[in-house]
Structures are given as C-alpha cells and as structure tokens.
C-alpha cells in the first residue's frame, strides 16, 4: 500500500515517471494497454487544445471569463481515469481534464463558460455535478453522495476536487470529517497548483504538506507528483479501490502548477516571477508523458499531428456551434426554480414578456 510507505507529513512526492519521462519505479507502471495509454495522452491533449483555443477566443472578444487548466492535465486525467462509469465526479471549476474523461460533452463546457445555464445540464446517465464556484462547497455534496451510497448499499465511489486555496475553507474540514466518520466512499483530490489566484500555497496554510491534513480526520493522505499521470492514477486507483471496499475516504494532494493565469481576467505577473513559471515549464505533464510514450515507441509524431488536428477541429466546430446562438430563453430564467412555477413567478414572466412586446 503506497499510503503506508509515503508519510504525508514528509515532503516526499510519490512518483513513477521523472520529468524526462524516465521510469523511477518500474513496478509501479500501471497495466495499461497501448490503446489506453494513447487515450490518456489524447485526453490531455484535448484539454490543452481546448484551453488554448478558448484563450484565443477570449482575446478575440468572442468568449467570456475562462479558467484554463494548462499544466494540470495529469492531475485531472489521471485521477478521473481511476473512476468506473458508475462513479460520481464532483468538480470544482477548473476540471476540464476530468470532464473530458467523464464524458461530459464539450458543448456543455463551452455553454457554461459562454454564460448559459444549459452548460450545467449534465446529460442523463453521466454521474457528474456541474461546476461549483463557491470554493470547497462541493466537497459537502461529495460526502453526501458517498453517504447516500452507503445507505443505499451501492458500491459507487465519488471523486471530488478542490484547490490548494480551497483547503482553507470550513467546508473542506466539515466534508472530510463527515466522510471519515461515515466512511463515505470519497476520494478527495486537492489540486495543489501553488496558487489561489495571487496567494501562494505557503501563505495558505502553515502545514508542511496538504496531504498531512488527512491526519486530522483519521484518513490516509498522500502527496503525489501531480504532473506524473501514472503516480496520480495509481494513488487515485488505490484510493478508489479502498473506498469501494468500504474502507472510507482518502485525501490526495496532487502537487502541480498552474502554468497560465487564474482566469482570463487575471494577470499573474502581478504576483509571481516569470522565472518561476519558466522553471515549471519543463515539468509540463503532457511533455513528460509524451517522452515516455515516445521512448516506448507507442507515440509517433504523425499520430500526434493527426490527433491534434482532429481535436482542434472538434473544438472549433463545437465553439462555433454555440457562439452567438446561446442567448438564454426568457422562459428558462423562470422555469427551473421549482417543479411547478408559482403564481408570482408566472406573473413576473408574463409582465416581462408583455413589456418586451411593448404591451401593458
């Protein structure tokens, strides 16, 4: 059990691949088929391409505020891939990689960030919650979903996400405590990307690692190299399996770095040195994985080019599909507050429609 080997109070990252894609712990290479490996790589690429396209749409004034996750692809794809189909995905707001693994259509994601609530209408059959903006509040939902599984005797697991900043919220504490007390099958993944907007990790908490916060709840915690997709996957898989066996929740700190801005409204030069970013660039999780796959002879440049092009086409066509065709229907503003619209809302809707029609 890796959780027993890695003491969360020590700054010792669980790692399978080093930044050059060299294998550090051969016995820990997950038993993936080539197909699976390429799928994982492709999903990371997909995420990266979508992020970059969206940033450029934003610069062109075609997109609203957007939160890219460049640099965090391994942390997301690796952890989400440890889920079974029936497991629940509970994101924070920067989990593009996770969405893609979970099968949430790109169109939803674009609709959401384009300012339309239909983006949060996860298609039936996909067990995922929508974006949660109030930091750490979603962890309570994850705990509740897990508790419900125990009550119902279902074996599905919940994988839930939060940032390093989010660990300071009261809701983080309460959710982890509930999950541990009720042995809820939840894997809490902290994407420690070193910043909460401008506030660096070291000012967020005085604990040496975030993983060690697990001790407060009597649950296992592990610090993993978040840019190493194998390490993230292994830790997540072990935690998911534990949870499914009824052994309760786990805390995983995925140590990574946000290479881009917090959102498109943010200017990171205000609070961090460019050197720092440059130092992290060679640790890019996609690069590392690519080197490994190339060394193994699984990835070819031709495949990569073709795949990138396909993915990019998909991104572009999805965005163009929703662009400027996404205004909210007036009815939709009112319709979803209650199963049956109460009279005062009906009245407000009618009045407003009649105002628009220029009537009384």
């Amino acid at each position: 059990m890796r959780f027993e080997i890695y003491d969360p109070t020590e700054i010792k990252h669980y790692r399978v691949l080093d930044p050059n894609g060299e294998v550090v712990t051969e016995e820990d290479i997950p038993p993936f088929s080539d197909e699976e490996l390429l799928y994982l790589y492709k999903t990371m690429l997909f995420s990266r391409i979508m992020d970059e396209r969206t940033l450029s749409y934003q610069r062109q004034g075609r997109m609203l505020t957007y939160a890219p996750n460049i640099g965090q692809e391994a942390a997301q794809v690796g952890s989400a891939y440890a889920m079974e189909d029936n497991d629940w995905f509970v994101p924070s707001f920067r989990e593009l990689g996770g969405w893609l693994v979970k099968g949430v259509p790109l169109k939803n994601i674009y609709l959401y960030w384009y300012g339309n609530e239909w983006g949060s209408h996860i298609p039936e059959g996909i067990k995922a919650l929508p974006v949660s903006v109030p930091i750490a509040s979603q962890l309570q939902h994850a705990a509740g979903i897990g508790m419900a599984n125990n009550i119902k005797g279902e074996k599905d697991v919940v994988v839930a996400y939060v940032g390093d900043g989010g660990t300071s919220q009261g809701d983080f504490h309460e959710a982890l405590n509930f999950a541990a007390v009720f042995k809820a099958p939840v894997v809490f993944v902290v994407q420690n990307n070193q910043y909460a907007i401008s506030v660096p990790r070291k000012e967020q908490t005085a604990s040496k690692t975030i993983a060690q916060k697990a001790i407060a709840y009597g649950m296992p915690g592990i610090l993993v190299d978040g840019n190493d997709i194998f390490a993230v996957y292994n830790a997540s898989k072990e935690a998911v399996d534990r949870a499914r066996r009824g052994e309760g929740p786990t805390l995983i700190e995925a140590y990574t770095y946000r290479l881009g801005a917090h959102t498109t409204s943010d200017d990171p030069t205000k609070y961090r040195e460019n050197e720092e970013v440059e130092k992290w660039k060679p640790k890019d999780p996609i690069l590392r994985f690519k080197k490994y796959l190339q060394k193994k002879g699984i990835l070819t440049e031709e495949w990569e080019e073709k795949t990138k092009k396909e993915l990019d086409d998909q991104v572009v066509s999805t965005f163009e599909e929703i662009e400027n065709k996404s205004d909210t229907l007036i009815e939709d503003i009112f319709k979803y507050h209650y199963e049956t619209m109460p009279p005062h809302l009906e009245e407000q809707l009618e009045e407003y429609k009649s105002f628009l029609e220029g009537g009384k």
Partner: protein
Amino acid sequence: STEGQVVPTQEKPKKSKVLATPVARKLAKDLGVDITKIKGTGPNGRVMKEDIYRTKEEMTKEVE
C-alpha cells in the same frame, strides 16, 4: 411592468365597496362627503377627486 393595476371586471361586486385612492378618501372626509354615496366616474367606477368635488358642490347647492 407594474402589478399595480386592479382588474375588478372579473370580480363580483362585494358589499358596496368603494374604489378610491387614499388621497380621495381623505378628501371626501375633509369635505364631509360620504364617499359610499358617490357614483365614481373613473375606471371601473373608481371615485375620482373630481367626483368628490362635484358631489360637494351639489350638496352645497342643495343646501342653498
């Protein structure tokens, strides 16, 4: 867009209720006019200030 409009047309008249603004009611009181006796000429039979002045005038004339 206001909800202010009353729609008394669909209403069954309840025991001789008078429609009037607070200002009109006060005016009637101040002038010593019984507002329930006035036939309003406003929308839906609402007693308007002019109705009250008119009634007052008529009362005064009657007295003369």
